[in-house]
């Protein structure tokens, strides 16, 4: 066997990297960057006291991919693939915000059909993202089977989306002025079938997960985010709604054709992990409703409007907020003319959702920290950009 340099079993000679005073019970623990529950490449530096977390300090940047830098060197279309890669779990809302930003800045009309297609596909993508989250969250809680069930459902949507967009994950489907491919009857049919199927699946989720006493005990009262805390941190999306604030960009600043649909904003009461879980489940149902209505109302017409071949951006700045799967996504673009943005600031939802963690994690048990982190629905490369 390979022997270590310290041979007699005592680590007396081993100097610890950090000199923690021996009177201190606390110790440091790296959780991540490679850790099953940090969903990729988040690293949380924990200061622990036994099972309790004294301080949880996320260390970001292990997935930093220079999106903001790249945006400043590319035309809008060339940056398009990047938007789909920031939040790979729900790429279409990112595409949506990005193209809408340019449409807003340059005042480009989008055909109604294109807007409907966007809404349908975005909502499908939101459901996919929630599927992924649901599975991963339960995996964090130690249940392995639900993730296979949700992925099974997810594959159904991915099939539908792949048929129209050509890819399964990192979509690059929308274009300024519309979408790059029309949907057909088969799409409508399959989507309707999916809606029916998904409604039935909710029952399975509820039986297997929601009602389960172990699950409830794991999430009840864990990781409470109060509305006041949410405001200070700028928490968004289902996390915010779980805290009881009914704020949804789709309602607050209706973009695209969201004002034409009848849907509700689910909100929680206590702001614990259970509320966030329930909010997301209900959101899936609401998305299904939106898709249903959109399919019913789907107008005929072109799917790609008239767009100048080379987009000339006016000087000035513009901001566009959309409700991505994880919350408010804001693109803020500063343009100095030409066809390349001068600066594109992307405010991603998980960023602020994660920034709660140091306060949220204080004094939590490590198992609760994992549960709370899972309920925040983090996509790390989105945070790091």
């Amino acid at each position, binding site marked *: 066997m390979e022997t270590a340099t310290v041979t007699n079993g005592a680590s007396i000679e081993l100097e610890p990297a950090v000199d923690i005073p021996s009177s201190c019970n606390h110790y440091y623990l790296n959780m991540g960057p490679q850790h099953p529950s940090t969903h990729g490449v988040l690293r949380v530096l924990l200061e622990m006291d036994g099972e309790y977390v004294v301080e949880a300090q996320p260390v970001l940047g292990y997935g930093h991919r220079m999106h903001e830098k790249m945006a400043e060197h*590319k035309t809008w*279309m*060339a*940056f*398009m*693939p*990047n938007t789909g*890669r920031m939040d790979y779990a729900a790429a279409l809302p990112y595409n949506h915000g990005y193209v809408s930003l340019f449409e807003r800045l340059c005042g480009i009309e989008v055909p109604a059909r294109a807007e409907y297609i966007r809404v349908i596909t975005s909502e499908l993508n939101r459901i996919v993202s929630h599927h992924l989250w649901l599975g991963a969250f339960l995996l964090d809680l130690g249940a392995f*089977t639900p993730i296979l*069930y949700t992925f*099974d459902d997810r594959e159904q949507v991915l*099939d539908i989306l*792949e*048929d*129209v*967009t*050509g*890819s399964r994950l*990192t979509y*690059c489907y929308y274009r300024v002025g519309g979408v*790059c*491919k029309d949907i057909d009857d088969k799409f409508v049919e399959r989507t309707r079938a999916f809606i029916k199927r998904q409604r039935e699946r909710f029952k*399975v989720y509820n*039986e*297997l997960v*929601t*009602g*389960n*006493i*172990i699950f*409830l*005990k794991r999430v*009840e*009262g864990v990781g409470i985010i109060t509305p006041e805390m949410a405001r200070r941190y700028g928490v968004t999306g289902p996390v915010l709604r779980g805290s009881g604030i009914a704020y949804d960009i789709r309602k607050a600043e209706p973009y695209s054709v969201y004002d034409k649909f009848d849907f*509700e*904003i*689910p*909100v*929680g*009461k*206590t702001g614990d992990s*259970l*509320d966030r879980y*329930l*909010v997301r*489940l*209900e959101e899936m149902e609401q998305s299904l409703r939106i898709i249903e209505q959109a399919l019913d109302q789907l107008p005929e017409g072109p799917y790609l409007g008239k767009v100048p071949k080379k987009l000339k951006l006016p000087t000035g700045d513009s901001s566009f907020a959309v409700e991505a799967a994880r919350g408010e996504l804001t693109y803020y673009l500063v343009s100095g003319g030409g066809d390349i943005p001068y600066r594109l600031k992307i405010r991603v939802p998980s960023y602020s959702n994660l920034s709660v963690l140091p306060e949220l994690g204080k004094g939590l048990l490590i198992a609760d920290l994992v549960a709370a982190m899972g309920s925040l629905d983090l996509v790390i490369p989105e945070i790091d950009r």
Partner: protein
Amino acid sequence: MNVSTDIRTEGKGYFGTLWYGAKSLLIGLKVTLTALFKPIVTVQYPREECEITPNYRGHVELVYNPETGGCDCIVCGMCARACPSDCIVVKGEKKEGEKKKSLTLFSLDFTKCSLCGSCVETCPKGALDYSQDYNIAGFTREEFHYDLIERLKRRHQQPLAAAAGGN
């Protein structure tokens, strides 16, 4: 709409929790047991091919034009310019007695491609399309620096050879 329902266990009491918990656990077991006897959903890949949608975006590929027996590319270089990751290199030369340039090199570095579709969309002649290669893997990265003309030739050996002979 408020989602907080009566499922919370708080305040259910000692025996209430026990009763509720036992019931919920049994229901959970029922779900997995029914799943155990349902058919599997797996597509067993190397043995069963799954259907790939015709819209699948594989790496880009030159489109074969049965009329000319080659491709329609006019070596305008639009695709190469549109590509955000500079994966495409197009070269052509003007042969004697021909109006258009003819394609001599069309290389694609697939390892940098992000499958954005710019090249396909910008091509004025529609000479590019996505392939259906969804299951590629190799031992070196150079294997994915494709020479698309070569690939086109291999796909349509006969017609291209005939066309070459005719020239």
